[in-house]
């Protein structure tokens, strides 16, 4: 059994840039320990002083908030997509260097939606 787990940008500093992992966890507690084993640097950031997962971190399974599905009791199904989103908001870390791309190097603009667009 395998689930696809998408990590937010805010985690990447602690995951060596990994944005996505495949997991064989059966439920949320197992997934958390797997993430913490794979990325030990993330552990202290993911949990508060009492060892609880920080309250601003939300988990979604196939577009639904896991709290509506039974939270820790929900059993992952093969092919589930798990989204981790902090605080229902997000953002890009500062990317000042991309804004000064030499003219003519990139013909797209941010509106075109190309991932590597650098002329916004």
């Amino acid at each position, binding site marked *: 059994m395998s689930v696809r787990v*998408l990590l*937010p*940008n*805010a*985690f990447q*500093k602690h995951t060596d840039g990994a944005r996505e992992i495949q997991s064989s966890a059966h439920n949320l507690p197992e997934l958390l320990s797997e993430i913490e084993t794979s990325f030990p640097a993330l552990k202290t*950031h*993911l949990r*508060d002083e009492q060892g609880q997962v*920080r*309250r*601003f*971190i*939300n988990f*979604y399974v196939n*577009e639904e*908030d896991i*709290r*509506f599905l039974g939270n820790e009791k929900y059993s992952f199904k093969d092919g589930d997509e798990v*989204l981790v*989103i*902090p*605080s*229902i*908001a*997000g*953002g*890009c*870390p*500062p*990317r000042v260097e*991309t*804004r000064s791309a030499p003219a003519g190097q990139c013909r797209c*603009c*941010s*509106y075109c*939606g190309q*991932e590597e*667009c650098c002329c*916004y």
Partner: protein
Amino acid sequence: MALAYELRCRECGKTYPNAPLSICDECFSPLEVQCDLEAARGSFTREKIAQGPDSMWRYKALLPVPEDYVAPTPAGWTPLLRAPRLAARIGATNLYVKNDAVCLPTLSFKDRVVSVALANAQIFGFDTVGCSSTGNLANAVAAQAARLGLKTYILVPADLEPAKILNTQVYGARLVRIDGNYDHVNRLCSQIAERYSWGFVNVNLRPYYAEGSKTVGFEIAEQLGWKLPDNVVVPMAGGSLITKIRKAFKELIALGLVEEKEVRFFGAQATGCSPISTAVKTGADHIEPQRPSTIARSLAIGNPADGVYAARAIRESGGWAEDVSDVEIVSAIQELAETEGVFTETAGGVTTAVTARLYAHGRIRPDELTVTCITGNGLKTTDALTGAYELERPVRPRLADFETYIEQQIEDREDNRFEEREVVGGASVR
């Protein structure tokens, strides 16, 4: 000159230079703008504010924009109305309405937050902006982005009121209807903001956007003659507005513009989407998300981003939160219009109905100076009143016909009085 504001994590306190960023990379909690109050002390005085424009930009010194920023859209500075007729109806004697139903340019308080957010979108160099919205924010982003020549992607739940869709499209905005509720839209926008280099006003620009709400608090204090009220009643969707009005009052106290006072904050929600009021009532320190089901779509956020902070602000201030049914919301819309001539949308119906209940339950005493915040215009949600009024038969343009019409009116009124006397122990709906 260095900017007199920066980003700071609301939980761990880590600070960040100004950037389109809303999450702390250490503890994954929300970031907030922290203004340098000492730097503003010289420019944020009663006199200098009075010399400023008749808009929210009179408070520029405590908003996250550069000192020389010139705002292209004069949002805010809406009326603070004494509301004696509504007060008499609900058992109050010292009630005011802060009327953002007439906030310009798009008739909701979202014009304030969008003004600040788009100023920062330009500073960060975005050519495309967007938002997830329950309607009012969509209108505000579409209008102000048009004026600034920014491209837009605006995401809304597919079942949004037709007026709010039209009032977004008319500005040439690209409106994307999402097959889901607001929480689905919001989650998707969080992902989009990480994937595309767009300025989402309530996602990656959220810390800047939220500061615009402080101007509601600044205006209330100034319009009361630089005095703080005893109580404020505020509608809650994401929960940001109530916390920012409180922040505004604290900043005014810190800078000595008003006397120190602990204002009590009361939150208003629809029962069909009441995660924050439920947390306040049960004393919970977390928010249980809900699946919204209410006509107050602009408040229908089941997983509010600032819910814990709103609940905390209410609790710390000694206030309370209430929620009301859809029937009460419609009645309250009518009651506010009939008594004070203010036509509000469903969210204002929520606030008005909750205000009435707070007096009825003795949570607010009649003589306390109370401000109830109306945040949007009724013309945007006229569907909520469908069936509430009948269109009468046209009268022929002759005086005799008009006299007949008036006589019929008088007869009908007398019949109604008779029927009312017949009802024993019956209670008025309103």
